[in-house]
């Protein structure tokens, strides 16, 4: 265990947590905002895949990272729109529609990958541009802290700033207030003349936007290629993380950090010659355990509230 402890106590481990947290934090924010509006977007998995793929393809063909970013975001927001169209306009169940979108995204990206790269696995043959790493002036000079905080991919910082953005959006803007009102009591919102469907659609578009950033980071930061189903369940872990964090900014940040930590541990355990099936299991098992504790706590809370009436 000695070498493992050493590596976990090293600044590199702290750095790894933030790096691994990024592609969870983005979709978690997306899920949280849509949940606050009362129409949970569990199509994050598919949204991330589509954007990750689009980013790689566009950057390969245009060699322009701005265009890749733009295209990726556009595709993510479109996924949110399509989900909104199914759910709000055609009145389909939002969970079922999201599952359909996830399956579509998985199949579609593999199909296109095959058409373009003649490869059903990864796009290693397609070189993708990546977003730059940022070295924070001053902070990088601080021992340990500098090593943990500085030198991350641009999108990692964007992710952390997104928490502040989310806080501002939810608590300080009119749209945020309306999102919360619609989520808590749509009839109440409607009765004061708020267009409930429009607010829900906005929240789905925003969640698509954050899903897109998560996907783009995966294929153009975390690694520099696209691989089939490379999201590996992060979109679903985001659903768990959002619930654990109560869909609120600070909670969402802490729970994403927690899942980042767990994932980092599972990676650091790999050299220990434990069966890899076991180490890979850790994040998912933790998710289940965390959710169990969360539901127990919520039931308690509910009971306490009921007792008060």
């Amino acid at each position, binding site marked *: 265990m000695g070498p493992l402890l050493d590596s976990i106590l090293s600044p590199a481990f702290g750095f790894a947590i933030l790096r691994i947290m990024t592609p969870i934090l983005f979709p978690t924010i997306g899920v949280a905002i849509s949940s606050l509006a009362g129409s949970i977007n569990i199509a994050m998995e598919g949204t991330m895949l589509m954007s990750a793929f689009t980013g790689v393809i566009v950057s390969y063909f245009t060699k322009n990272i701005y265009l890749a970013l733009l295209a990726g975001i556009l595709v993510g927001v479109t996924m949110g729109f399509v989900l909104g169209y199914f759910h709000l306009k055609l009145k389909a169940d939002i969970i079922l529609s999201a599952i359909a979108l996830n399956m579509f995204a998985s199949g579609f990206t593999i199909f296109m990958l095959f058409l373009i790269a003649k490869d059903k696995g990864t796009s290693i043959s397609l070189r993708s541009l990546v977003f730059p790493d940022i070295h924070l002036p001053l902070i990088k000079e601080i021992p340990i802290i500098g090593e943990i905080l500085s030198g991350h991919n641009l999108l990692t910082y964007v992710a952390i700033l997104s928490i502040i953005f989310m806080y501002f959006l939810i608590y*300080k*803007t*009119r*749209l*945020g*207030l*309306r999102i*919360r*009102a619609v989520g*808590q*009591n749509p*009839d*109440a*919102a*409607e*009765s*004061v*003349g*708020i267009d409930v469907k429009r607010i829900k659609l906005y929240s789905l578009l925003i969640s698509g936007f954050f899903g897109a950033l998560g996907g783009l980071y995966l294929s153009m930061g975390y690694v520099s290629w696209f691989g089939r189903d490379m999201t590996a369940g992060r979109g679903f872990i985001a659903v768990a993380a959002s619930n654990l964090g109560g869909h609120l900014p600070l909670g969402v940040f802490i729970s994403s950090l927690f899942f980042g930590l767990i994932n980092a541990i599972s990676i650091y355990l790999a050299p220990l010659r434990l069966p890899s099936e076991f180490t890979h299991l850790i994040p998912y098992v933790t998710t289940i355990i965390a959710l169990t504790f969360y539901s127990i706590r919520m039931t*308690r809370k509910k*009971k*306490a509230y009921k*007792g*008060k*009436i």
Partner: protein
Amino acid sequence: MVAILEAKNIVKVYPNGVVANKGVSISVEENTIHALVGENGSGKTTLMKVIFGIEKPQDGEVFFQGRKVQVKNPHDAIALGIGMVHQHFMLAPDLTVAENLVLGQEPLKNKFVLDTKKAQEITQEISEKYKLPVPPNKKIKDLPLGIKQRVEILKVLLRNAKLLILDEPTSVLTPQETEVLFQTLRELKKYGKTIIFISHKLKEIKEISDKVTVMRDGRIIDTRDANELSEHDISFLMVGRDISYERVSASEAIGEPLLKVNNISFTNEENSPVLKNISFEIKAGEIVGLAGIEGNGQNELVEILTGLRKADKGELFLKQENINNLSPRKLREKKICYIPADRMKNGVAEKTTLEENFIVDRYCQPPFSRGFRLNWKYIEKYSKELIRKFQILAHSSKATVDSLSGGNIQKVVVARELSADPKIIVADQPTRGIDVGSEELVHNLLIDARDKGSAVFLISANLDEIIKLSSKIMVIYQGEIVARFDKIDGIRDVDLGHYMLGLKRGEV
């Protein structure tokens, strides 16, 4: 006097074919309090929803302040100056009072940013103007019902409503809260507002309203000055027959104790003692009434009696048998029935049919089922019988519960519970939201059950009801029985009121 609102020939047919308004015309004079009364399902709520733009009528026109108007949605209504306080509150529970008030017309700083300070100022201003104090920064879910309703009224006033529609505002209020609401309404009248007020409580209608319109079966029967009519006249107009308000005679056949409650105590999850050493017994053939302001432990007591909650201490007996900690199902098998206070939450499954709701507690017994299969033919026949006997207004036994009017939903619950041949009946607010005719029906059914030897435990915020029906009365205050009356004759509601408010304690 000029009419502020005039509706002409409103016809409303719901998608399921129910004609809820059959050519209704009503005229409401400016600056009056106009009561709208009528039996359950007579179409009062529907008419108001049409005026407020929630439901689209098939025919008819609406004039507001002399102009013909098209109200397509609540937004249009608000813009005209019509506001509605719904029977179930339209508030976001996790938002603050101020946020709920400004919702939909939020003050902004730079186009996007909420001006929270301004929102609080607005709240303060309007609440001072109309003398309706509210805590601007408290979350709605932490407020008592009366204050929530006040927020609703302020919400309507903030939008400059000239006409306020209140749909059964008093059905969830205690007598004290009702008094406060009435002061508010009188105050609003001084400000030139017009109020339409729906209620089933005739005493209140006499007290507060200037005009009374009576509806029956989707039509308007009559509109009169309130002081021309006695309570008696109003109920006669509503149901077309006389209704008795006399105290019912006590049952002769009082038998052995059926329900015995010994020293029940309960401390809730927040460590406050909600029930303290409650003991009482109910004999066969007796109705014991529990009076008290809501939130003094009645809910917990009822839940303990019906197996929904476990007491920390104490015992329950059915005759000699200990029934502590039995599941609700076991209790039901022992013929303990329960009419819950919150019908939508604990009484019915609203998306399912009347038939299904009638048999939920007995589907597994013959003749409702044969082996694995439900006997739908019998269930239908049985349901139709209940619908007839309890005078439930429903277009079919296969109608879903949510297509019924509020009072008729209550009757569905009462019908199921009282038809189970109960030994003990726990009746929590059994007549909330139902009209005088149906109220009498429910009262008679409870009395019938009593005379057949059931023990009835009646919990009600309506003191008239308690005094009318009970053989004995207990008053609960902060989880304690503070008074017991074994002789009811001559007791007035104000006497009970003193104990309910904790101003007095009796011998217990």
